[in-house]
């Protein structure tokens, strides 16, 4: 990492680039345990995507929480402001019929094809570590128009050559890490952005699969003062950093 200490955190960086990927009017979903997407959606709505349709497990449509819950992203606080309820079942149906634009999904392990493992380390039936499970991913990843993955650790145990188990496969578009962003192009994750405080070398050394740069590779723009100001305003308790 650069020695010059930036005026923003890795959590800020991840939240800001995630928000920038969102488009106005699209239908966006996040599930359990998704603090960064929860904050990024509100940031995007304050900037380029005021009419983004925000869906979550709570059933809220365009929930606008006064404060973000810290330990969970399925909390009733997300219901504030909603004018109708659209349940998780309905969100899966929406995705299944091809009408969900963006789903945020995580992965304990992610491979170079953007496939992910949330199930087990070791054998499925006699696991060394039983992980929480893929939640919606096996159903959503193949049906959402695009998935944006994120993981707040970037090391070779996360970005692996081979998954212990393939929980889900599908329409991954981008993978956001604390150091940069992969883009799935021609069926593989290519390095698309490196964050200002990291480097291709650092990412290469911390990734379990070979790094290839995207034709659109660039250094990501640092969070702007405006972005940071909005973040501070909407998330003063720094819930976006809770996964670090």
């Amino acid at each position, binding site marked *: 990492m650069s020695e010059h200490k930036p005026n923003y955190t890795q959590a800020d960086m991840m939240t800001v680039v995630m928000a920038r990927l969102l488009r106005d009017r699209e239908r966006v979903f996040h*599930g*359990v*345990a998704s*603090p960064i997407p929860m904050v990024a959606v509100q940031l995007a709505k304050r900037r380029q995507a005021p009419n983004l349709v925000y869906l979550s*497990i*709570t*059933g*809220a449509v365009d929930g606008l929480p006064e404060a973000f819950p*810290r*330990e*969970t*992203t*399925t*909390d*009733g*606080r997300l*219901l504030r402001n909603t004018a109708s*309820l659209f*349940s*998780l*079942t309905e969100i*899966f149906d929406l*995705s*299944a*019929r091809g009408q969900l634009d963006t789903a945020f999904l995580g992965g304990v392990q992610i491979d170079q094809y953007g*496939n992910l493992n949330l*199930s087990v380390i070791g054998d*499925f*039936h*006699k*696991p*060394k*570590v*039983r*992980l*929480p*499970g*893929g*939640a*919606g*991913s*096996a*159903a*959503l*990843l*193949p*049906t959402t128009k695009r998935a944006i993955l994120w993981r707040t650790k970037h090391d070779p145990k996360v970005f692996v050559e081979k998954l212990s*188990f*393939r*929980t*889900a*496969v*599908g329409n991954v578009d981008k993978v956001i890490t604390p150091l940069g962003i992969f883009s799935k192009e021609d069926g593989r994750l290519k390095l698309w952005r490196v964050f200002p405080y990291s480097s291709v070398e650092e990412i290469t050394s911390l990734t379990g699969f070979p790094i290839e740069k995207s034709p659109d590779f660039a250094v990501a723009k640092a969070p702007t003062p405006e972005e940071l100001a909005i973040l501070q305003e909407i998330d003063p308790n720094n819930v976006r950093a*809770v*996964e670090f």
Partner: protein
Amino acid sequence: MSKLLSLAAAVGLIKDGDTVALGGNTIQRSPAAFAREMARRKKRNIELVKTAGAYDVDLLALAGCLSAVHAGYIGFENMGLAPNYRKAVEGGQTQAKEHACYTVIAGLRAAAYGIPFMPVAGFLGSELLEVRDFKLVKDPFTGQEVVAVQKLQPDWAVIHVHEADVEGNGRILGSQFEDALMTRAAKGVILTAERIVDKSQFQKHPESVAIPGFLVNAVVELPGGAAPGSCYPLYDANIEAIRSYLAMAPEALDDYLKEVR
């Protein structure tokens, strides 16, 4: 026809070996007090059904009640893994019948719709197809292959609601989660309720009453029944209590069950 029962009597309806669907989602409005009573009564070989679970599932795993869990996600979200569920699965006592949450829903739908299986979109490419009991079926119209999920019919759905009347009509405020579907899929339904209200309250707003009484076998008045989880908007999750549960040594369970009612 009052269906009001004590918590103990309602838990008594559940037999060892039963399949039980629990309402709510993660730490939100799950039937936590009901799960503790199941633990106290040492229910055995229970198969749980849940889309996303946390405290309820973990506690029942710790108490040795569970032979299997059908779920998409079991964990404490930003607070970490479910330690006792993990151990029960890793130790082989409890089988993780992992689903995508949507395939739990599909299996429940098949049960609710009286059909042996539900086709479901997506899911192709997942190794869950190989290690779990999902199959492929050919669409008879186009020949296209689609994933089939077998009917998942719980013996019981246990749902914590904000308000119930003595006949079993139940009203949930805010997030409904997959609870109404569970009441249709299960053979029997038990409600735990923050409060018992007069039926006339529901007759004013029948469209807000998601659970009709005629599907319900038992109602338990149980204020705070979702704690330490939340019952929005009545109370938030008690995070301190959840963290203290997570830090608890397994041997402390009996004391915990005596202390936490």
